[in-house]
């Protein structure tokens, strides 16, 4: 069944405390090549049947109203994944 994948990231100007903690932990494990980490969220919305334009529009609406908070987050990607 197809899924609609929605990726949400903290806005660039918003400090991401979790990303900051992760970037601090990486070098302790020997991963020294990464200067910054930002942590976002991935949602997978399963659709029973075909993804129509209407369903995709619903997903976009849900992404803007419930899945993300526009004050602190951006919806950076919405795509359909088959199977």
């Amino acid at each position, binding site marked *: 069944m197809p899924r609609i994948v929605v990726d949400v990231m903290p806005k660039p*100007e*918003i*400090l991401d*405390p979790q990303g900051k903690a992760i970037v601090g932990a990486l070098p302790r494990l020997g991963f020294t090549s990464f200067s910054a980490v930002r942590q976002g969220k991935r949602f997978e919305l399963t659709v029973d049947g075909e993804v129509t334009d209407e369903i995709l529009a619903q997903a976009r609406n849900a992404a803007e109203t419930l*899945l993300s*908070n526009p*004050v602190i987050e951006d919806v950076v990607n919405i795509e359909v994944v088959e199977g």
Partner: protein
Amino acid sequence: MTETPLIGDLAAPAAGSALSGARIGVVTFPGTLDDRDAARAVRLAGGTAVPLWHAATELGDVDAVVIPGGFSYGDYLRAGAIARFAPLMDKIIDAAKSDAKLPVLGICNGFQILTESHLLPGSMIKNDHLKFLCRDQVLRIENNTTAWTSDYAAGQEITVPLKNQDGQFIADEKTLDALEAEGRVVFRYVGFNPNGSRRDIAGISNAAGNVVGLMPHPEHAVEAGYGPAHTGTDGLGFFTSVLNKLVGGK
């Protein structure tokens, strides 16, 4: 005053109180923790607490509403994000924006629900130090003209408990400047910023002053001997403020 039981019918009106005719709704969501303390604070202040269930489709006969703290829906998705779409929230949002200007106080998770509802601007993100923090916190009352702060003096400092993980108040610079210019920064952290909140902001109001939200917990500081050490009752003024406004029309 008659004794208020720790466990009992908190909705019963306080005997003989001139304020007991004022009915303050206290909302419970799945995962709310501080509804009983909030109801108790209403009662200790002399009012009548009315339990409200999140799934109700009518607000009923209440004169003001407290959205208490806790972890509604386990803080899943974002703190307050799912509770914000409860049926009762639609009624609260309408009533808060109506000409009647229903007084609404959001404490901690309740504050998060009010920002998710866009009744208040900005948002709360994880504390800058990433840890859950519980401490006695000094606040300054920056605006004593709101529905929930009129019994305090402007500039008065109070001590109430603070306990949260997602308590860092953020908003863009333009919004912060507007909040400051319009006197809508109602509470500021004093001495120590416990979570990285912009400009030490602990709580704010809407433009009309009927909707107020803050992260610290006044409802846990309403009874001598139980709240922070120096008096323990610094939070009672929130509840007497709104009751006096409702009864006295001030």
